[in-house]
Structure formats: structure tokens, C-alpha cells
């Protein structure tokens, strides 16, 4: 007590880093902005409306669930905005607004809050929302339009993956167009350049570590290299198509649903890559990123268990066995 006022007493440490959950989420939102900007340019201002609807619904859903369940208010941590944006990013720009809203509600209420909120969900909310919508409204969720046609009548088209599946790279946009996002696809997944830029930002800000994106993209690249008999052009098309970059950089790296340790992250990334490649090669679906991440999400507890590091100074197993043998 000093001058009659009680001093604060707490457990050490008495200094903390400046990093907070809110700052991390803000960094993720910033990292998604380049992709959003390119998307608006490619698919028109409707993109912004879709995002606005899904983000608003995500925030409202988070607010309502926390209120109803009488839990602390968490909209301030901005994680609902990240989820809302990712839900929108995984839809075509032509999606009916109510579907965009529904996606956010499924993501926030069913996947995130039913399991206890941030950090507790076992599957990526945006991924599950996308899968539910895809299975429920297949036509609307795959109504792709050609980029830069929004001013006139939007022209429907197939995605690059559907074309790739037929085994030809003809009639595909040039690799440069693919890299810059001038191709059909979900509104947030098309521009590789913007997604990579966002990923670099997150790496610099130490929000994510390179293990998962590198293992994921690397695995897909290796498998596709084998499938394409060393055709690098084909590999490039595979990597730039579909939701691979969006998934690998922004969805598979979700803290709650990926392993904590580097070893676990690498296993997780490789697993995502293998499943994605298998679906792309053998399944009737054209794209496998969401299912790959979902399946690996479910395996995270097992990966975690298998990759717990040995505490400092714990003798290695062989040594222990040797010692036991000696004794």
C-alpha cells in the first residue's frame, strides 16, 4: 500500500508484447485488401456489395450469438470481419446476396460460436460455409463470369480448373493473366499476385509462418509435376488455378484449425497438398482445396499429439533404450 492506495500485484512477467488478437486480425484484413481491390476491378462493384453483406452478417451473427449465450462480447477482436471476408472471397461475384449472408451466419454461428468461439472451432468457418453452400446451391455457387465483362452483359464461362481437367491448356487465359487475376473464379481467389503480396505482408508481420503455405503449395507442385511429366507450364496453371493460393495462405494457416508446431504445420501442409491434388486428378469435382483443408482440420488433434516436442534436456529415445539395455 502506498499513500493509502493498494498496489497492483500480479504474477510475472510484468511486461507484455504489444501484439494483441485485434492487431493480428487487422493485419489479416489488410493482407486481404489487395486481392479485394483486384477483384473489384475484374468483377465490378458488386464484389464490394457481396463482401459488405457477408461481413455485416458475420458481425451481427457474432454479436447475437455472444449475447444470446451470455458470453463476453468479442466483435472487437475483428475475427468476425476476417471470417466474413473469407466467406465472400470463396463465392462467385454473381452470388445472390442472401446466400452471402447465409454463408456468414453458418460460419459464425454453427462452426465458430457453437464450439465456444474464437480459438475453439475445429474446422475453418469460411471453408465449412463454402462447402455447405456449394452442396446446397451448386448452380449459384458455380456461376462463373469472365473478368472485365461486368460493364456489358456478364459472360458466363468455365473455370480454368474445369478446362485443365480435360487435359488441355488451350483456351486458357495466359499465365500472366492468371497471375494478375484476369480469370474466372471465386471473387477473392483469382489474383495470385495480390494473394502472394498479402501472404508476404503476413510473413513480415509474423502473423503466419511459411511452413503451411510452403508445404501445401510445394506438395501440389511436386504432384502436378509428376502428373504433367515435368511440364512446368501445366504446374504453373495448376498452382494459379482454383483456390489454392487463397486456401494455402489465408485459410489453411488459420490458428484455431492448424497445428501449433512447425513439424505439425509441415505435415498439415503436405496433407492438404496431397488431398487437393488427388481431388483435382481423380474426383468428379474440379476443385479440392476446401475439402482438403476441412479433412486436414479434422486431423489436427492427431497431428498435434504426434508432434509434441520433447521438453528441454529430455534424453533421446534411442539413448534411453540403450541405457535400458545396458542396465
Amino acid at each position, binding site marked *: 500500500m502506498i499513500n493509502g492506495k493498494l498496489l497492483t500485484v500480479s504474477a510475472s512477467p510484468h*511486461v*507484455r508484447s504489444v501484439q494483441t488478437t485485434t492487431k493480428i486480425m487487422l493485419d489479416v484484413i489488410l493482407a486481404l485488401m489487395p486481392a479485394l481491390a483486384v477483384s473489384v476491378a475484374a468483377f465490378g462493384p458488386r464484389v464490394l456489395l457481396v463482401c459488405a453483406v457477408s461481413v455485416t452478417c458475420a458481425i451481427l451473427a457474432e454479436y447475437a450469438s455472444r449475447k444470446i449465450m451470455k458470453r463476453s462480447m468479442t466483435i472487437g477482436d475483428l475475427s468476425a470481419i476476417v471470417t466474413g471476408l473469407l466467406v465472400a472471397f470463396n463465392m462467385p461475384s454473381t452470388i445472390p446476396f442472401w446466400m452471402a449472408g447465409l454463408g456468414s451466419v453458418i460460419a459464425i454461428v454453427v462452426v465458430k460460436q457453437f464450439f465456444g468461439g474464437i*480459438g475453439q472451432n475445429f474446422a475453418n468457418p469460411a471453408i465449412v460455409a463454402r462447402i455447405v453452400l456449394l452442396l446446397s446451391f451448386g448452380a449459384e455457387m458455380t456461376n462463373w463470369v469472365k473478368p472485365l465483362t461486368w460493364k456489358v452483359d456478364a459472360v458466363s464461362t468455365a473455370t480454368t480448373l474445369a478446362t485443365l481437367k480435360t487435359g488441355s491448356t488451350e483456351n486458357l487465359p495466359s499465365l500472366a493473366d492468371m497471375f494478375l487475376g484476369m480469370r474466372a473464379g471465386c471473387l477473392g481467389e483469382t489474383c495470385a499476385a495480390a494473394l502472394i503480396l498479402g501472404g508476404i505482408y503476413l510473413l513480415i508481420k509474423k502473423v503466419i509462418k511459411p511452413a503451411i503455405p510452403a508445404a501445401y503449395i510445394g506438395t501440389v507442385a511436386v504432384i502436378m509435376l509428376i502428373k504433367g511429366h515435368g511440364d512446368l507450364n501445366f504446374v504453373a496453371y495448376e498452382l494459379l488455378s482454383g483456390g489454392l493460393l487463397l486456401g494455402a495462405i489465408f485459410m489453411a494457416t488459420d490458428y484455431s484449425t492448424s497445428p501449433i508446431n512447425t513439424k505439425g504445420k509441415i505435415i498439415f501442409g503436405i496433407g492438404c497438398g496431397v488431398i487437393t491434388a488427388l481431388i483435382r486428378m481423380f474426383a468428379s469435382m474440379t476443385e479440392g482445396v476446401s475439402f482438403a483443408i476441412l479433412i486436414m482440420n479434422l486431423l489436427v488433434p492427431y497431428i498435434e499429439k504426434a508432434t509434441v516436442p*520433447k521438453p528441454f534436456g529430455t534424453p533421446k529415445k534411442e539413448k534411453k533404450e540403450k541405457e535400458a539395455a545396458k542396465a
Partner: protein
Amino acid sequence: MAKKIAGVLTAVKKVRGGAKVPHRKNTAETEVVRIPTPSKVVIPMSMHIGAPCEPVVKVGDEVAVGQLIGDSDKFVSAPIHASVSGKVVEVGNVKLPNGMLSQAVTIESDGEMRLWEGIKPPKVETRDDLIKAVRESGLVGLGGAGFPTHVKLNFPPEKNIDTLVINAAECEPYITVDYRECIENSWDILSGVYTLKELLGFKQVIIAVEDNKPEAFKVLKRIADNEIDVNDEVKLMTLESKYPQGAEKMMVQSATGRQVPPGKLPADVGCVVMNVGSVAFIARYLKTGKPLVSRSLTVDGSAIAEPKNVRVPVGTNIGEIIDFCGGFKEEPCKIITGGPMMGLSIIGTDLPILKQNNAILAFAKDDAVLKPEKDCIRCGRCAAACPMSLMPTNIVRAVKAKDIEMLNKVGVTVCMECGSCAYACPAGKPLVQHMRLAKSILKEEAQKK
């Protein structure tokens, strides 16, 4: 990154994780000043790790500086000496900064700081002489832990101890007393290093310093390069300035690449780690015979008017020391003894300074209020920061579930409570508190059996 300099070692095996804490070494260029003799000192009989001492004086006794006032016949203990001259006015219980009760001897100072006539330099020619002398000096690890030094040095010959690591890392923010020791008392360090090496038969001595202290580096380099080191067995090692480089097990790993197994001591892997201040003290003691009755500490923090390095008699009232440093310039909200990473927050200033205290830090509201606790987002920053490769998330889960089986598996006993995990946590979780809870649950369980 520790730069490579010819003749200077770098870490054999680097410390994993850790925290890039702010340095805030505001007092680095402030010479250590002696505070005016306090009117009264309260000297607890339990300052060190190990058995408390029993008072050997009674109320009314006249004592002089350096006179024995408490001792124990237990091995893990260190005798306690009067830090001022004067009269014993009370022998009773006091509350220590950690909240425990301990017997204490209160001495009213006569202001003279008269040395006890029995003080004379000890005769030290052999290893046993040295260990006996160190015990009589009352020395405990001055780096903060307070482990009796003579116990540390009294390793059995069959342990094959080959390395003495001298810790001048001082990785906690704010604290600069070890740095000042290097600058101001380099002769003592030099003498201490070579005496310990010769009498205890270390094959090598590695002096470790962080790379953010170039002045200390220069001094220590001269000590390591001294010509009496004919076989070049005393070496300097620079470490990347990163918390917790200065932790004992980390020091051993950096210097030798060896890892101390869980539940073991550095001696089990052939090392002894000593704080640079402790080494310098031994040299002074061998020269003068004056036991550990005063120590240097850093007084700093946003609420302190004039941050200083001070030399104070053991048992001086913390409030009196703060007054000497100009008192508070802002209303203090939190006061801690030790560094901000591992220090202890205290409930008031009416407490005595202990032998192992190396800092008093007082923080105004802005620095005292930590970020609010939020839900864990499983980002893994705690696990990445843990120098002991633990998984704080798993430990917290086991603590909450009181799952004894899981607690036994998660390896929490190797946790040294360095606080790197809690520092890194964006959700502001009090992780160290959970680690302590985990340990106490395990202790309770062990006692049940």
C-alpha cells in the same frame, strides 16, 4: 545476431524461442552510489534457497558490520551477517516480499558502520579452504535466485566438472548492476575468475555477455585475454541479446552445447554457472574478509523520480531506498523486486532488501496495467517462445481439467517460469501463473502418495 569476432566464442547451440524484450537499460551509465546509512535494518533469516538460519544474537546485543547474526547447521543454507553496526532491537517474524513469514533480526543503526573486529581475510590455499570461505562469506547467487554459492561449488570430484560459465548476460530489462560490476570492479572479476579456476580445477572458463553491452564486452575481453591465462582457457562468449539468455540452463547450452536433463543441475553435465557479481564478490571477500552485507541494485521504472544504481546494506527498507532515488514522480501502481520478466510484485514498500534482490522497479499506471485477458486463439506464439520446448497451451488445458496424468506428460517441471510465453501471448493470458498452478498440483499429488 552475435557478430563473429576473432578469439571470441559464440553460442555452441542457440537458445530456442525466447522473447525480444525491450532493454530499457536507462541506468547503464549511472555509477553505483552508496546510500546513507539506514537508521534501521530488518535482516530476514530466510533469504536464500534452502534451510532458514537461526538467529545467534538476542535483543539488546551490540553488533558490528559483518558480525554473524544467523546460521544454520544444514548443508543448503548460508550464514547471515549484520549489515550495519548498532543494537539488536527485535528478533521476530516479518513478512518477506513473497508473502512468506520469516524470522528476522532488526538492528537499530548507530550510524557508524563500524566493522566487526573479527573480520580478517580468510586463508585460502586449497579447494576445501575456498568452499569453507565462500560459506562463511554468506554468499548466495547474486543474479536473483539466491542459491547458496558454497553448495554450488562443493561438487563431488567424480562429477567431472570441467567448465565454469560466468554469467554477465543480464537479459532482464532495466537491470544494470552486473554491467556496472563489469565497468567498475573489473579487477575483482579478473581475480575471482582466475582464483576459482585455479582452486576448483576448471578446464575452461567461459564468460558470457550479451551483444548489447559493448563496454562490458571490452572489459571482459581484457580479462579473458589476460596474460596469466597462459593456455587460453578463459574465453569470452557473446550472445545475441535475447531473453532469457541468462537463465542457467540456457547458459550451459550456449557455452557447451550440453542440455541439463529435467530435474538435474548444471553440475550433472559438468558445468557450474556463476553470476559475474558473485565472482567479483568472492575476490573481494578473499582480500578483505568482509562478508555479504550489502549489495548493488538498480532502482528504475516509470514512477521513480531519479533512477539510480545504489549499493545498500542487506535489510534496508525498500521505501527508504526509493526515497533516496528522489521518491515517486508519479503515483506508483506496481512495485516489483527483480526484473520485469521474473520479478516479484510486492504489496508495499515496507519490506527489507534481500541478498539476492538485484532491482526495485516502480511502475506508473500505464506500465502496470497489462493488456486484458482474452480467449486463446491457438496462435502458438507461446510454444514458439518457450526455450524449454514446452507447449503452454497443453499445460493450461491440463491445469484447467486438473488432469494429473496429462500434467505428468506435458513436462511442466522443466519450466523455469521465465515468462517468455506470457510475454508473447496476444491474448494476454497469465501463462506463468498456470505453470505455477500446474507445478503445485503435481506437488500436492506427490505428497498424497
